């Protein structure tokens, strides 16, 4: 979906190691720097332009080459700059100058202060209607896609090629993989799929038989899944 270049995400962190300790913070601290607040607000406000989708924003952030070296809001800021240039809202020269040099794009929706509360309150549902019936039912065993794909996807690599069980049927939702690449919503059935930890982490150190039970649930679109015959397991 992304042409000839290989799609590389730097955000698929589940199960990776070597990231150090968790630095807990107080629940009253929302932003650590004033600029972080401006980045959050600019990202939300610019998103209202209608020139890209949330899935596209994620694609632009996760493919930043220096993703691992940036703080969270540095990632957002860099992702926003790339989107603004690629979608033709600003030029690289304007970013460098910090001022407008050419005429703005026409037809850009602007989020006004008085519309903020209503806009945030209504949000934007990703649930859609589809004519196809769901392929799987709650309780079915499924195997997730094992092959790597050359586009944005929401199947974490730790859960690729693994057997899980359908636990929830969420309804049809906008398909992130296509939506992130400007290929339309292509809504498809979304499922909550649960995996036993032993299925996910088979390279982990052997566990004693009485190991505490552990499971992980992911939300997976139907095309991530194929049926598994219960008798084969």
């Amino acid at each position: 979906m992304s042409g000839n270049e290989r799609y590389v995400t730097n955000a698929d962190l589940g199960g990776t190691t070597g990231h150090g300790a968790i630095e807990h913070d107080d629940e009253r601290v929302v932003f650590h720097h004033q600029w972080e607040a401006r980045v959050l607000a600019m990202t939300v406000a610019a998103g209202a332009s209608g020139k890209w989708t949330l899935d596209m924003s994620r694609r632009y952030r996760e493919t930043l080459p220096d993703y691992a070296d940036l703080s969270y809001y540095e990632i957002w800021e860099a992702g926003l700059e790339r989107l603004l240039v690629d979608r033709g809202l600003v030029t690289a020269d304007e970013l460098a100058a910090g001022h407008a040099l050419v005429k703005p794009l026409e037809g850009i929706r602007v989020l006004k202060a008085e519309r903020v509360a209503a806009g945030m309150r209504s949000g934007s549902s990703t649930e859609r209607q589809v004519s196809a019936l769901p392929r799987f039912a709650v309780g079915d065993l499924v195997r997730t896609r094992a092959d790597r794909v050359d586009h944005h996807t929401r199947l974490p690599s730790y859960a690729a090629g693994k057997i899980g069980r359908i636990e929830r049927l969420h309804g049809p939702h906008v398909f992130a993989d296509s939506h992130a690449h400007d290929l339309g919503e292509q809504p498809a059935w979304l499922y909550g799929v649960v995996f036993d930890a032993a299925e996910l982490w088979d390279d982990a150190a052997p566990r004693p038989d009485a190991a505490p039970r552990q499971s992980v649930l992911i939300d997976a679109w139907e095309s991530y899944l194929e049926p598994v015959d219960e008798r084969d397991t």
Partner: protein
Amino acid sequence: MDGHDHHHEHEHADDHSELGPMDVRVRALETLLTEKGYIDPAALDELIDTYQTRVGPRNGARVVARAWVDPEFRDWLRRDGTAAIASLDYGGRQGEHMIAVEQTDHTHNIVACTLCSCYPWPVLGLPPTWYKSAPYRSRVVRDPRGVLAEFGMTLPDEVEVRVWDSTAEIRYLVIPQRPAGTDDWTEEQLAELVTRDSMIGVGVPLDPMSLGDHELSST
């Protein structure tokens, strides 16, 4: 007036003495987008104020407290989290599709987003830095008990740990167990016990004994 002048002084100080590279870069971007007519700076102020003062974990705490005192609401929350939460007027961006998951004696739930930072904004506000950072995202799915230990929690071996990795647009809110000894507490008092971390699953509500009579009577 005093408050305004005070605020202005801070901004002034920022202007001249504490500008880091990101301050400069972000200001340049905001100037550019404003000159182009793409953003309304007043809308940015409004967005920031929304998530700094109005939409945060106190919203989720009210949902939890209602679930603790009202069995019908709890049932509704189980059946249709989005609708039940909307009845308290919480919903919208990053909470369009809500599922509430309950802590029990048998199952302990933890919410994460290993791929980015998905989080139920309408009930918890913006995610904390640790939730969005590599250490939590990488480890929580593989070693949730180790992560809980870092948050100071140890679970009995017989309790199943369930991690909810928010990989689509479904958002999860953990409903912690109601602390013992709170039978005669009001809903408002109970909400005071509910912490952000307990609604992510990496903490438990405050100990009722930690809130003295004085604090209770003043709420």
